[in-house]
């Protein structure tokens, strides 16, 4: 199994200088600094993204694609420029292969429900993995129940990787393989290119939930050989309320619309309608315009940092966290997922002694350490782990060793309270 991620030795950027660009991270609570370790959930926003959205809203905001005055043309140009930025960032062939959506969840729903409804019927097989986020599970459940589709699940190994030994059997007769490029719970980086090729070998569609991947790695959609991919803005320093569906142009062309309304039509008659060309076909109604500008500014910001450097930084900080927590707590801490940085990202789910993650998070909050406690929208995986919930710390470009040390120190406080 080969993972496509390189672990670069590129010089890591100056984390303090990066962190200084995030106004929220200057905030204190109870007079002490924040340690924001929940970026796999949603990331903080740099000044340049906030400013780009404010500037656009103050000077250029207008409807897009529908009015003839200069201001509206300017807004439309800015919206389309943002699309082109995002397309370049993930190496799409053409900007029109990027559909702006509400989030990655909507993007996956377009695939499952619009493509699926047109292409799947009784007895067809869709293959998913046991580590999927609910966003890549429930849309398929919905269409499976409606159409009588069989869902199959790629199992996991003990150490939280995909167990591909039965992949040929699972893919036998499959119409779709849909999987996460990176697990939001285990941090596992999956072999995307290999899986896309395996899907294509049996004539199945390859769909990639790239939500946890794109913000942290160099993404080359063409090299993956996928058919569809979904990702969001808010996990990569952009605003919430906007995400993207990437699809191969010919597939998007052949897929019927998802939501109907304004903007997505060429013509509407009493007896029917003609949809607009891609991407407008999938962008019904007024889109999140300022958010698109923010999304575009966010990918510029990430590109300037260099995604190789982002990956290198996260490898460094996650390795430090793994070493620190294991040295300090040994068998009292259980890290879920691979511990080798070669095929994992900066997401660290753990169990600490017998403490419930909700209690761990409560105590850490007292020390201004913000982590996620819960099922991470991955209940099938939680059941496999035998846990109702896990505690999860996740790292990003603005996190440093101080944040890791604060996490490790605060865990000691949890032991004290519960007398463990």
């Amino acid at each position, binding site marked *: 199994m080969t993972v496509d991620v390189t672990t670069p030795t590129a010089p890591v950027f100056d984390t303090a200088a990066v962190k200084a660009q995030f106004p929220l991270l200057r905030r204190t*609570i109870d007079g002490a600094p924040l340690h924001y370790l929940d970026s796999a959930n949603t990331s903080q926003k740099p000044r340049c993204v906030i400013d780009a959205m404010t500037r656009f809203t103050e000077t250029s905001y207008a409807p897009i694609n529908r009015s003839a005055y200069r201001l509206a043309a300017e807004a439309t140009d800015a919206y389309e420029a943002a699309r082109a930025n995002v397309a370049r960032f993930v190496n799409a062939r053409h900007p029109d292969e990027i559909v702006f959506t509400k989030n990655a969840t909507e993007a996956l729903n377009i695939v499952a429900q619009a493509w699926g409804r047109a292409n799947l019927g009784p007895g067809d097989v869709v293959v998913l993995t046991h580590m999927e986020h609910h966003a890549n599970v429930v849309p398929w459940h919905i269409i499976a129940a409606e159409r009588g589709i069989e869902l199959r699940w790629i199992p996991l190994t003990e150490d939280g990787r995909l167990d591909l030994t039965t992949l040929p059997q699972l893919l036998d007769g499959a119409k779709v393989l849909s999987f996460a490029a990176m697990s939001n719970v285990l941090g596992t980086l999956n072999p995307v290119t290999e899986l896309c090729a395996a899907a294509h070998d049996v004539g199945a569609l390859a769909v990639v939930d790239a939500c946890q991947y794109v913000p942290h790695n160099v993404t080359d959609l063409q090299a993956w050989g996928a058919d569809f991919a979904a990702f969001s803005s808010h996990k990569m320093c952009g605003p919430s309320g906007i995400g993207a569906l990437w699809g191969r142009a010919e597939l998007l062309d052949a897929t019927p619309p998802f939501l109907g309304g304004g903007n997505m039509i060429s013509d509407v008659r009493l007896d029917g309608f003609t949809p607009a060309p891609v991407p407008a076909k999938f962008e019904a109604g007024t889109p999140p315009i300022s958010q698109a500008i923010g999304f575009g500014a966010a990918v510029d910001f990430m590109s300037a940092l260099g995604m190789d450097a982002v990956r290198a930084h996260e490898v460094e900080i996650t390795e430090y966290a793994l070493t620190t927590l294991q040295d300090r707590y040994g068998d009292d801490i259980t890290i879920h997922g691979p511990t080798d940085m070669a095929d994992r990202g900066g997401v660290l789910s753990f169990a600490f002694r017998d403490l419930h993650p*909700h209690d761990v998070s*409560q*105590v850490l909050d007292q020390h201004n350490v913000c982590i996620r406690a819960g099922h991470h929208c991955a209940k099938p995986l*939680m059941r496999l782990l035998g846990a*109702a*919930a896990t505690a999860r710390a996740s790292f990003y470009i603005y996190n440093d060793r101080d944040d890791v040390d604060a996490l490790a120190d605060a865990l000691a406080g949890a032991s004290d309270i519960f*007398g463990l």
Partner: protein
Amino acid sequence: MPGLEDLYREIILDHYRSPRNRGELPTPPAVVAQGHNPLCGDEITVYLQVDGDTVSDVKVGGQGCSISQSSASMMSQAIKGHSLDEVRALVKRFKGMMSIEDADGDGDEPAGDVSLGDLEALQGVVKFPVRIKCATLAWNTLLEALDQPA
């Protein structure tokens, strides 16, 4: 921010470590209800044995954080052997302590002499609003069990 000692009182930790009335009851004659906290995945199952007008036995199953599990444990102790009216009054009083107004808000004072007892220890939860759902999970599940046809 209020201190954690307001939340994690000793009696709460005691009920968390040694939960009372854990287990199951045969259904029927007992009724059962399941509650989930979708936020954190906590689960509570409440088994109620009602004889005439009295909750003659109660068992609790499930898993979750210290607040949800200790609240369920203390609740089971508080309701066992009490009349249905008293149990409903206790639910109302507990939710009141959690700053949750009764939906039907008829203003009636709770019937009977119900005491919160150990449950008073949970009043610190109000200072941690995120955790109120943890504390009330068992109680909402109890209400569902009370509404089950025997």
